[in-house]
Structure formats: structure tokens, C-alpha cells
């Protein structure tokens, strides 16, 4: 398996050979920032295209077909349209917060995005409380959404933002509980370590019953946290026009839109990393020939394959289930997911204590 840190080490030694240490580190930070933003934009474009195609397929349609082969240029056309549209300033809105809100949302999303381990040695933020940091960073997004709803001076926006706040804060609990279940199994929060420990079997198989329950809870709660699927009532088109981003236009709306899709990818990427082994190939203990063949497939192919598979499952949810009411959403969270998550955590502790996992 190719270790990407060889490349980064080589770049670092090259830069330090003719630059002072501080300048070299600064240049590396800028370069990595640019890479993350580029990757972010590319993932967003792929996700929007995938959303339209998958949605079409679930509704027995073909989706965009006209612009470019199989409609592949359609998303670029949409992005270009979004970029050249005017950003309208709303009268009687809180100008500062109104303009700040989309950047808070996108900031939270990019911070969470840079935690994902894409391949062996290809992690940007990787330290011993990685999952904790990811949960903390991704929950900043709700502040941006609340600000957007408040500062727009529009009741639809405000209702949408309030619903979104209630929903995201509630479901944060279930996501954390299901991640905690796996942390009990791994006894580490560092993403690279978590992936390394799945070399002899992914946690979904190693942790069997509690890991599977945690996986399902994570998918449901994650879907709710990115305001998608059956939980899209913060932006319920039919009742709240577009929810918290009703008053936004141009690229400010585009930032919300892009952040929503990349957040979905982040949820899927974290699910792939924690439960499905991240960039770790499928290893079956005992079958050494099979394992070496699997090792020839590069790590990022595994990671993106798994992540987009989880994205596909989440889109399957979205285009199958009807939207829930706010009371149903809170009932599902507080009466079902949280108690089940807590019991599941207990079950996982018992399994780890008595060494019943694989």
C-alpha cells in the first residue's frame, strides 16, 4: 500500500533545504489550504451531479442529459450561473450577520472536511482527539444556520432556522453516541489509528451487532444533521419556500447549497472511515492471497468507493421516505434513537469487557 506521507516528507525536505523552517511550514500550509478548497469544490460538483442522477434514477427518469455527454457539463453550467448572479442586499436585514452566516456554515464544513483521511498518509488534520474535533467543528455550522435565519428578517427563514437548530442539536447526540460506541471498541479517537486497527476486518464486522446498530443510527442521525432526506423540514420547499436560505441569492446561496452537499459527503466519509475501514482494503483474515490483491487497489479508491456508496444509501433514504413533522422528528430522536443508542453503547461495553468481538 502506497504511503502518501513519502510525498509530503519529500516536499518538506525539499522546501527546508533552501528555506527557513517557518517559511517552509507557512508555504506548506497555504498549499494544503488551496488543495482542500479545490478538493472541496470538486467533491461538491460531483455530489450535485450524483444527486441529480440518483434522484432521477429513483424516479424512473434520466436526469440531466443535454449539456455535455450524459449531462456532465450541466453542473459546471449551474455553478457558473450561480457565480455571476447578483448578491441582493435585503432591506431591514442585519447586514453584518446576513453576510457572515454563509461563511460560518462553509467554515464548519471545510474544517470537518479536512479531518477525513483520504488515503494512507493523506490526512490533513490528524491528532489524538480527531473525532472529538470533527464533532466540535461540524457543530459550528448550526450557528451559521441560526444566524442566517435570524438576520434575514423573514419569518420563513426564522422558522426554518429554529427547526434546523432544534433538529441538528438533537441529532448531534445520536451521532456522538454511535461514534462513541465505536470508540469504546477502538480505544482511540485518532482517525489514522482507527483506520489502522481495521486492517484485520472492518469495525462493522468486528463489532458485529452493536456496530451494526450504531451504523444504522449514525446513518439516520447523520442524514438528519445535514438537513436532508426525510428530515429536510428546515428547508421544506412546500411550506417554508427554502427555509433559512430563502433570502439569499447568488454565491451566498451557493455556499449554503455547496455546504449541504459536502456535509453529506463528510457524513458518508466519516461513516466509511469509522465503520467501513476508510482507505483500508477489504482484508479477510487467513486469505493472504486475496489480501495482497486487495492491497494493490490504492487507498483513495477504497475511501471514495465506500464514501460514495454510503452517499448513495443516504440518497436512497432521501428519495424514498416522505418528510417528517417536527414533533415526529423529535419523537424519533428522543424516544427512539437516544435510548437505543445508550443501550447499544452499554452492549458494546459488555462485549468489549468480555472480549466477545472479533
Amino acid at each position, binding site marked *: 500500500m502506497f504511503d502518501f506521507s513519502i510525498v509530503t516528507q519529500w516536499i518538506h525536505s525539499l522546501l527546508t533545504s533552501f528555506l527557513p523552517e517557518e517559511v517552509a511550514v507557512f508555504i506548506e500550509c497555504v498549499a494544503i489550504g488551496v488543495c482542500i478548497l479545490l478538493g472541496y469544490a470538486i467533491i461538491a460538483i460531483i455530489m450535485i451531479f450524483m444527486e441529480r442522477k440518483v434522484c432521477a434514477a*429513483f424516479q*424512473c427518469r434520466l436526469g440531466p442529459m443535454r449539456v455535455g455527454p450524459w449531462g456532465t457539463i450541466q453542473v459546471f453550467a449551474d455553478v457558473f450561473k450561480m457565480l455571476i448572479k447578483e448578491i441582493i442586499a435585503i432591506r431591514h436585514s442585519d447586514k453584518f450577520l446576513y453576510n457572515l452566516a454563509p461563511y460560518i456554515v462553509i467554515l464548519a464544513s471545510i474544517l470537518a472536511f479536512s479531518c477525513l483521511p483520504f488515503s494512507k498518509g493523506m490526512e490533513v488534520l490528524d491528532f489524538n482527539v480527531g473525532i472529538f474535533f470533527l464533532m466540535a467543528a461540524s457543530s459550528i455550522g448550526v450557528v451559521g444556520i441560526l444566524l442566517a435565519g435570524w438576520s434575514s428578517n423573514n419569518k420563513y427563514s426564522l422558522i426554518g432556522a429554529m427547526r434546523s437548530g432544534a433538529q441538528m442539536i438533537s441529532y448531534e447526540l445520536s451521532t456522538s453516541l454511535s461514534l462513541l460506541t465505536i470508540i469504546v471498541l477502538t480505544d482511540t479517537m485518532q482517525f489514522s489509528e482507527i483506520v489502522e486497527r481495521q486492517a484485520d476486518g472492518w469495525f462493522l464486522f468486528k463489532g458485529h451487532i452493536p456496530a451494526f446498530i450504531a451504523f444504522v443510527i449514525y446513518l439516520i442521525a447523520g442524514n438528519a444533521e445535514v438537513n436532508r432526506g426525510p428530515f429536510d423540514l428546515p428547508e421544506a420547499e412546500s411550506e417554508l419556500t427554502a427555509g433559512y436560505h430563502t433570502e439569499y441569492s447568488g454565491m451566498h446561496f451557493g455556499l449554503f447549497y455547496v455546504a449541504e452537499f459536502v456535509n453529506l459527503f463528510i457524513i458518508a466519509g466519516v461513516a466509511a472511515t469509522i465503520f467501513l475501514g476508510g482507505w483500508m482494503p477489504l482484508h479477510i483474515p487467513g486469505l493472504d492471497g486475496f489480501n495482497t490483491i486487495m492491497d494493490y487497489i490504492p487507498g483513495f479508491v477504497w475511501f471514495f468507493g465506500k464514501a460514495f456508496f454510503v452517499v448513495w444509501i443516504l440518497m436512497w*433514504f432521501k428519495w424514498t421516505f416522505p418528510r417528517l413533522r417536527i414533533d415526529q422528528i423529535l419523537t424519533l430522536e428522543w424516544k427512539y434513537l437516544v435510548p437505543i443508542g445508550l443501550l447499544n453503547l452499554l452492549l458494546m461495553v459488555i462485549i468489549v469487557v468480555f472480549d466477545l468481538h472479533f
Partner: protein
Amino acid sequence: MKERRSYLGGLLHGINTLLTGMKVTGREFFTPKVTEQYPENRATLEISPRFRGRLTMPVDAEGNNKCIACGLCQMACPNDTIHITSETILDESTGKKKKVLVKYEYDLGACMFCQLCVNACPHHAIEFSTEFENAVFDRNTLVQTLNKK
């Protein structure tokens, strides 16, 4: 009447119904898609047989239509789209008077495709074809004579 379920019963029932829904959409994901790529696939275009394109009067092998000039379609039409000109002739074989169709005029420009005329016809003499490319350059050409003889 909604039956009350226990906590676990309701949970299992909910999971079951969700899986049923996912099975339906999962099957839909892999079925061939119904979208028609219209201008490109003109040759192979498939239109649902119940589509109402324009009114036609089918003829049999000898070129005879089934119209008896009763005028029910003309009366059923809400837009006065249909105009029937008929004459009364003496039928030699039976020696009785008989009404026959002279001209069946149909104004496509006024038609709203409600299909009331087809439903009113007692002899299935008229029907809607699936032909839908009705655009013409002169609106006078929209007034068509359906009986060819």
C-alpha cells in the same frame, strides 16, 4: 381505526414499513427509465397508446369509415370543433331513407382534447391518434376534413 402498538412493536413495524418503501424505490432504481430523448429518437419514439394527439377517423380495407352521421360527437364537443355535413339518400337494397356523411370537418386549433366526442360515438368511428407534432404555419390548415372519400 388506528390500533395501538407497544413501544417495541411500533419500532419493529416502523422498520418493516421503511424497508418495504426502500424495496420499492430500490427496484425502481434499476428499472429501465421512461424518459424519451425526443428530437433525437423520433424514429423509435414510444408514446402511450392513450395519448390524445389529434382526432382521426380510421377506415377499413375498402376505405369505408364507420361514421353514421348521427351528430352525437358534434353535440358532445364543448368547443364546436366538429362540423358534420350530411345528406339523406334512398338505400336501394332496403328501400328506406338513410342519412350518410358528406363532410366531417374537425378544427384542430379549437380542440381541447377532452375526448368527449370519442366517448359519445356509438360506432367507434373516431379516435385519437398518438401523433402529436401538430404545428403548422397557417391556421387554416388546422381545419381538417377527416372523411377521405
